[in-house]
């Protein structure tokens, strides 16, 4: 059984159709990334799956239950990192993590989780005094403290410095290695490429493309660009047979600054939402 199964999901706010018929399948143990421009309906979709928002139409099953009716046990199997939060400002990091651990049957060790998200140095600081990226790490800590089977992360790495982002990727990979299912939204295409088994691109409340990061929208078969520097400046050739092109060109001697590139996930993405 899939961890998440969605069919024909719709949700409108005062006449504005935020989600306009979404189908989604996320297998158990899969890392799934939802991409899409601001206002595409990512948060709305994710919060419906979390049980935070109602829906107008569609079938939704998360860990076998309908989020609109699911109870305590169901929630104990989920971990949720919301897009933004500023709660627990007057608790220290350690107090907050320890407190939220109490809600679960078999929580992770609070100190371990604080270490995992890289907040050990800030364990005794009040949450309200953390920097943006540190606050976000606390949100991640609170999201995984209950040893969830399925984790929702809505733009988890907003405000992370590059090192913290790499560190976070490692954390997600280790969760995935333990068999945790992960659904995340992100605006960082390199993040989706590094983490996700599959991605979906949401635009205007609809899924416009879905696949692995490597093959999304025919990316794997797209023409490559061969580029080099000649005495007339940079030259570019788009071709489906780059090896052959280079073999031809190299007969005339060494090619300066030779590169072969395929469209990046970002190129494919920008094309999709254009």
């Amino acid at each position, binding site marked *: 059984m899939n961890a998440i199964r969605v069919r024909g999901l719709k949700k409108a*706010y005062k006449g504005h159709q935020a989600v306009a018929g979404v189908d989604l399948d996320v297998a158990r143990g899969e890392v799934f990334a939802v991409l899409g421009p601001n206002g595409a309906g990512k948060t709305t979709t994710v*919060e419906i799956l*979390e*049980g*935070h*928002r*109602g829906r107008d139409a569609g079938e939704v099953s998360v860990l076998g239950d309908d989020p609109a009716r699911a109870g*305590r*046990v169901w*929630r*104990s*199997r*989920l971990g*949720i990192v*919301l897009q*933004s*939060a*500023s*709660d*627990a*400002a*007057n*608790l220290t990091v350690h*107090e907050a993590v320890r*407190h*939220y651990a*109490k*809600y*679960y*049957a*078999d929580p992770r060790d609070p100190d371990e989780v604080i270490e995992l998200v890289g907040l050990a140095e800030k364990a005794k600081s009040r949450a309200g005094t953390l920097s943006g990226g540190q606050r976000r790490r606390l949100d991640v800590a*609170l999201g995984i403290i*209950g040893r969830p089977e399925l984790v929702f992360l809505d733009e988890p790495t907003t405000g992370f410095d590059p090192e913290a982002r790499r560190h976070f990727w490692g954390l997600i990979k280790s969760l995935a290695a333990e068999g945790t299912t992960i659904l995340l939204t992100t605006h960082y295409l390199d993040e989706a490429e590094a983490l996700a088994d599959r991605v979906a691109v949401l635009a205007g409340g609809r899924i416009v493309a879905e696949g692995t990061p490597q093959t999304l929208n025919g990316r794997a078969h797209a023409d490559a660009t061969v580029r080099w520097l000649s005495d007339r400046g940079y030259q570019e050739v788009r071709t489906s047979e780059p090896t052959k092109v280079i073999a031809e060109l190299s007969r005339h001697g060494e090619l300066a600054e030779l590169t072969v590139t395929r469209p990046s996930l970002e190129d494919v993405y920008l094309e999709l939402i254009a």
Partner: protein
Amino acid sequence: MTAVATLPGTFSLGLSRGATELREFFRQKENLIFTVSLPAILMLLLGTVYVKEPAAGQMFAASMIGAGIISTSFVGLGMSVVADREDGTLKRLRGTPMPFTSYFIGKIVLVFVSSLVEAVLLMAVAMLRFDVELPSTAQKWFTFGWVFVLGVISCSLIGVALSSIAKSTRNAAGVLNLPYIVLQFLSGVFISQAVLPESLRVTGSLFPLKWVCQGFRSVFALDDGYAVMEAAGSWELGKIALVLGAWTIAGLLLVTRTFRWSNTTS
């Protein structure tokens, strides 16, 4: 599933929430100054004007304790629920296996402890500065106890119900303080209800504050002869229990109907 058996109990989680609530509450200066200390400060200031003889001191202190616990319950709790909604505490909690009842138990712990601290502080000021005497009989302490409990619970519930109207803490300060301040004038805290025009007296008597204060005055009065100063000429203890009980039930109904976990969801 067996997991339900191993999830922590509702009551123990409620106590754990209460401890966390208290920790957060007492770390905020605004709470210490406005919610917990303001009634004692008002007692000190206004008492200097009002209290010319011991009997008046007893009555005024009693009324101020009444007004004080409404401040910690109605205003204080209402504000704290609005803040929980605004900063995402409630939304986060809703995403955990915590039962809603545990959240509520935590708030009850918070409101009782903050109300007690506030009342003790106020009584200390009254005793030290105005020689106010504590109730002398077990009977009076019993009355004090049930008026305190019913007053705190009914006003907490109304505060939480009203908190659903306010979208932000800035809004809530007005939504909650306006009725509180107006009612203090209509309920015999600052001026005796006996001197109010009929319509205002009746309006004041519809709400809990008047009855809580009257109950406390019956406890602190030097003797029962002072009951003649009440609007009805007696302490009306039965009616106090009835009115506060009715507000508790009404508050409970309102809260279960109007409670929202977040400002944005629908």
